[in-house]
């Protein structure tokens, strides 16, 4: 797989909730190659502050149109600037980066929280293309966080929701539903992306059941290319780079959360 620097053109942004937006970019070369689980490195400013590119997971691809979608939460300097970008603006994007998910599952369950649901959305869409409708379990702090449901409607099979405050779905974390779902769902593979504590808890439960589990890790990154070792961590018996060897790992490979 080749990596590109593309001077993409912004075709639109839409507001998903108070702190989350989706941006669509014309990036034909990246769109042609990106697989679910991969990410891109976006330069939000041509100036020196912010300086580094920011990694964002690929949330969708339109091969005909040559576009990619990114879904991001506005959390700091760079994402605030990104939120102000307009249609027609240019953004330099490097990608596709990292390794995607192993998509050999026949009965997949997707478990996500927060912007972890972005790469899972592209994963779900690609599974539908192959005739599989994955079940999805998604957690949020409150009902507002679960705007994701509408994005998954029509793609996913059964969608289960949890909120910390009980304003939507089952009250609690995804762990409030997971054991029961694993019991009844006869899943052969679980795909997890979300906050580290969620991924840790989910992985443990899934592996215990003897079911295959993949997780997508996040680490502070500078290059995204395997060159700077910002994102290096201990795998089993060897050092791994999240940006290059991941961000998707088999759950049993992860030794640091």
């Amino acid at each position, binding site marked *: 797989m080749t990596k590109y620097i593309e001077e993409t053109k912004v075709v639109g942004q839409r507001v998903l909730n108070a702190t989350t937006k989706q941006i669509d970019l014309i990036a034909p070369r990246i769109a042609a190659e990106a697989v679910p689980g991969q990410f891109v490195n976006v330069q939000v400013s041509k100036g020196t*502050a912010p*300086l*580094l590119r920011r990694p964002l997971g690929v949330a969708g691809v339109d091969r005909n149109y040559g576009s990619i979608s990114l879904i991001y939460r506005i959390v700091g300097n760079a994402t605030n600037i990104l939120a102000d970008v307009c249609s027609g603006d240019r953004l330099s994007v490097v990608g596709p980066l990292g390794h995607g998910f192993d998509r050999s599952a026949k009965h997949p369950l997707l478990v996500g929280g927060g912007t972890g649901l972005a790469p899972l959305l592209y994963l779900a869409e690609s599974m539908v293309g192959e005739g599989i409708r994955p079940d999805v379990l998604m957690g949020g702090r409150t009902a507002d966080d679960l705007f994701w449901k509408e994005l998954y409607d029509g793609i996913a099979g059964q969608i289960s929701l949890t909120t910390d405050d009980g304003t939507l779905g089952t009250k609690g974390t995804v762990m409030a539903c997971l054991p029961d779902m694993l019991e009844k769902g006869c899943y052969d593979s679980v795909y997890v992306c979300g906050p580290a504590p969620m991924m840790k808890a989910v992985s443990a439960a899934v592996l215990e059941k003897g079911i295959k589990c993949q997780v997508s890790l996040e680490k502070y990154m500078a*290059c995204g*290319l395997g*060159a*700077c070792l*910002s994102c290096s961590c201990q795998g089993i018996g060897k050092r791994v780079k999240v940006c290059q060897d991941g961000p998707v790992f088999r759950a049993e490979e992860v030794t640091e959360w």
Partner: protein
Amino acid sequence: MVRYLYHNRLAVDIAGLKMKTPVTTASGTFGFGLEFTDFLDLEKVGAVTVKGTTLAPRAGNKGQRVVETPSGMLNCVGLENPGSEYFLKETLPKLRKYKVPIIVNIDASSPEEYGELAAKLDVKGVDAVEINVSCPNIKDGGLVFGTNAKSMAQVVKEVKKNTSKVVITKLSPNVTSITEMAKAAEDAGTDALSLINTLIGMKIDIHRQRPVLGNVTGGLSGPCIRPVAVRMCYEVAQAVKVPIIGMGGIMCAEDAIEFFLAGASAIAVGTANFVNPAIAETISPGILEYMDRHNIKKVQDMIGLALPGRC
């Protein structure tokens, strides 16, 4: 814009190390070069300086390793690397397929160990060693040698004794007098100098009320340090005769030219590789354009033009 391939206006010779362009890569910011082949032609880079290499493999520091700062970044990678054995067996053979000089950045915890490492790397395919006496991110060695002229001189002598390659000594900016360090390295026999390594800095997470980086402090790099780097280059160029490889915050051809005018014979791009992974190739045409505009025939002709008595 590949004119520079067809003539040698951009060629420089750093104490015997022949570079087709005056642009190399700052150690630790370009991996082993192979990570960048999707973005550029390695053979159009003047030389590839690889990640800091130690005798044995190192796992580096725990915790968060990089954080952005105003116009810069802090890192505390801590010299993670697979060790010299692995480098020689696995990496070098791949790198040798490209016609580009290789500079290996070396780090150790005693002058003798520096010597041992230099001897090990005194093989075909390695064109120069760059002594890293200035890594602020490890406890043993590193900066200890970089802030003490005597210890540094010992290291330089040991390395010179043990290698037939061009020896470059990389200076730390975290000193009262960079010229004193430069002169000590020159007197100890270094063939060339490179500067600057990172400034020591830190960031505190005010919500968690603790340092952001796993190693507490880290090395500050990027455009924020360029004024300090240019000043040090300008000072050192007046104090020594050996050639200088200038670096620190170079983001484009204009920034590179500042260093040439300040007395550097070649330059390295570091943090900029993260922002634009093609920069190690694309900066050279920009330098050539400048030379055309200012009627400068060869890179050499602009080295030190801003030094006292020359401007």
